[in-house]
């Protein structure tokens, strides 16, 4: 271990960006809403496929986004729309700095669809949930898996393929962009 190993949040950002993701660190709820609104506006949409999460409720994001003219559509009630919406918003349980990974899930839920259907996936990740390395993260993860939280996805960057012409292309079947807002 180097004496000056970078702060986990910084390392997380560096590694995730190297895998093609984007990271912003924001603590003010208003700024968080602004960042999410910007993503939606960039895609030219006013509705976001949404899996309710503690941190979003806590920040009152629904109201703050409404001020930007943006509506959060919960997956459970999205109906056929779920497959049409271009942007989604979910939370995450862990971040792993060493690998640039966000870990979603625990119990089965709308996060499963929200993290794969849209073109852009926005993740709200509490800074405190970022763990420095894979072994430490895995230990925490394994404890939850073994105690009954059995459905998860680990996401490291956007969906990708290099099948055609051996050239790396983002946005194979899932999101073309992964945008992580580190909160706090």
């Amino acid at each position, binding site marked *: 271990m180097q004496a000056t190993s970078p702060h986990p949040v910084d390392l997380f950002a560096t590694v995730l960006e190297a895998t093609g993701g984007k990271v912003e660190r924001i603590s003010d709820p208003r700024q968080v809403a602004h960042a999410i609104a910007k993503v939606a506006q960039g895609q030219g949409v006013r509705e976001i496929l949404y899996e309710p999460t503690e941190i979003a409720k806590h920040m009152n994001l629904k109201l703050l986004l409404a001020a930007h003219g943006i509506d959060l559509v919960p997956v459970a009630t999205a109906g056929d729309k779920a497959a049409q919406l271009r942007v989604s918003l979910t939370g995450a349980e862990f971040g792993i700095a*060493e690998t640039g990974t966000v870990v979603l899930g625990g119990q089965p839920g709308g996060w499963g669809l929200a993290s794969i259907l849209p073109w852009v996936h926005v993740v709200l990740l509490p800074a405190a949930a970022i763990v420095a390395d894979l072994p430490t993260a895995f230990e925490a993860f394994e404890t939850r898996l073994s105690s009954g939280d059995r459905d998860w996805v680990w996401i*490291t960057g956007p969906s990708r393929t290099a*099948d*055609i012409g051996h050239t790396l*292309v983002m*946005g194979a079947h899932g999101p073309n962009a992964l945008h992580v807002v580190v909160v706090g």
Partner: protein
Amino acid sequence: MSGAGGSRDLAAEIKAAVGDQNLKGALFHAVSSVNERRRQAIARFPGYERARDAARRIKEAAIADLPALIERFTESVQRQGGRVYRAEDGEEACRMITAIAKDSGARRITKSKSMTSEEIHLNGALEAAGIHVRETDLGEYILQLANDRPSHIVAPIIHMSLDDVRRVFRDNLGMEDVSEEPAELTQLARQKLRADFLAADLGITGANFLLADTGTVVIVENEGNVRMTTQVPPVHVVIAGIEKLLPRAADLLPFLELLPRSATGQLLTSYLSFISGPGWEASPMTGGAARSFHVVLLDNGRMAMRDDELLREALYCIRCGACMTVCPPYQVVGGHVYGGPTYHSGIGAAWEAGVRGLDTAAGFNDLCTTCSRCQDVCPVHIDIPWMNTVIRERIAQRRRRPRGLIERLVYDRVLPTREEGSVSLSRRLFSDPARVYVLSRRRPWSRFMRLGPARAALSRLAGLSAARPLPSPSSETLSAWYRRRGGRVVTTPHEAQRVSNDRRGSTVFLFSDCHTEHVDTDVGKAAVSCLEKCGLGVVLVAGQCCGRAALSQGMLRTASGQAKELQELLAPAVKTGHAVVGIEPSCVSAVVDDHAKLLPGSDAAEVAAGTREVLEFLHARLSGEGGTTNEGGATGEGDATNEGENPAWIPAADGASTPVVLHGHCQQKTLGWLPAAVELLGSIPGVEVRVTSTECCGMAGSFGYKSDYYPISAELGRRLMLELDELAAAAHQAGGVARTCEYLACGTSCRAQIADIGACQARHPVELIDERLSVLSPI
């Protein structure tokens, strides 16, 4: 389509593949880049060896405990509302999955990549039942359109160029104008497949790992098609081999560290799915249909593999594909030629032997050159070359016929063998290099063999390539030279014992392998000289083959016999505390690696520990890191010679710097001796070392002599020459002035290949070292 075992015309397939510029271009580009990414990822992972050892241990325990794990996994999944099925064979698995589909009223299935489903021809079975199956991994989708099959377990269309893919789109999607941009083609496929995903009423995936204690299926992927397949339709069916089971969730960590790095050079893939049951009941995508989760556990020969001491190791495979991308013959011809119906390259023979039988493995097992590059990269330490050697022997045993008349009258006299039954001239020739060298030194044989018609007849009878020059033995053997010079040569166990007991102080026993003894005597002389300059007395052990050549022909009986005899010559030296040193890397590797496997329960492990490759030995000696002999040995007179002494190098003749390009021998790399050689050369003042990254020169002992395989060998040789010449050009440029750059190679095959294909001379590094090393201490 090939893969029908005995009916394959491998030689014709090889010719066609080597002639296919498109395949060569696509494949070579792809394997080179993934190999480079893997190398970098592993170089940056300090825990690599720890993870490898842990993964290996976990796999061994898991396979040992397999029946109990199946029970535990079944209970765990059922507790969570899923169902587990056990299929004896492929047919039963197909029947079960078809029944699940029918019971749930499924008509359209999306499916992610699963080699296990390829193994059992699942798509055919479902289609036959009137159910539409869509492969959704991009590569698999393209193969499905083209009615082709995967040539790699991780990158199924690694054999296809961009133009190949464009052609498939044009011909099968009714498109006139197909983009040349991979990104646009990917988007096109995404749209087509999106429609399939949303319409599917059942999803099928494979599994990378099954966690018995939590009943969890773990799937590793990059595209997101596994996510779509498992999240959208209401029914999820997993088809997985029983070998995918791990006891506990906690066991998964080393596999997560290894699999992405070994497969694609990633830290983690884009998606890792953990699925333990039917999933989210409130999903808006299922149209109110109840969700269900089914896992079909497939045996299909795996339990029998588990009971087979040799094939059991294949069950530890985590299907990373690294052994394929580093495999030299695979790099040239791809998995359709070097592979069976489902599994390819090195580990493919064991898998095909296990799930389909020896006859299928026999169709391609011979393409393994036992170069061992795969063993080096396998994240779970599978000894693939050894498996292929034993499979080769099993195939020969199975096809054994009695010896014919000509064999008894002629072959048995000229080239006797210890094998039972008929042994072809080719196998006799290639398993006994010493005898071939002796014969070709002896006139009139030597003259006769070089005559056109005789050579042609030999080529036909023994499958020798006419394009390959025969090696020329030197007029005097190394041991004859050494004796003439007054040196001590031992050829019998009795002599070995006596000399070992008599020698005091610093003595090394230099083992004169067949090639050094008969052909590369200059290399042997240089080695003797270097050792002597280091103040060591040299005893030459000569006249006994290590068995490596017989081993490569799958002739285990012969190889074991030879190994035993060589062990009798080397063991006394090792047991009395003398070091054994060898020159030809494959022969040294036979002593340090293969003998213990050939002679279980013998002293071979002790001899292995006391045996060193010459450059590695000299490096240790000259850098003062040991390499002395007789330290506290049985004779008790270990003297501390030159510990820490700086080697005195003689300046180059013209004082100029000497650029060299070194091509490491395969076993030298696998056994970790190359870095020492590079460091040793680099420590010579003025010597600038560049090292090739080409895995193998392509000669691989007998491989390059065989007419059927010559095209592969020559192609690999050309690639090596390209790299050597590139590195030499870089050396010239770096020097500013024209400097001659020397090629160095440690293997006799490597040097012969460089001479035959590149028309260049390469020396063994020890020859350069001998030129520049001054006498350090008199003996």
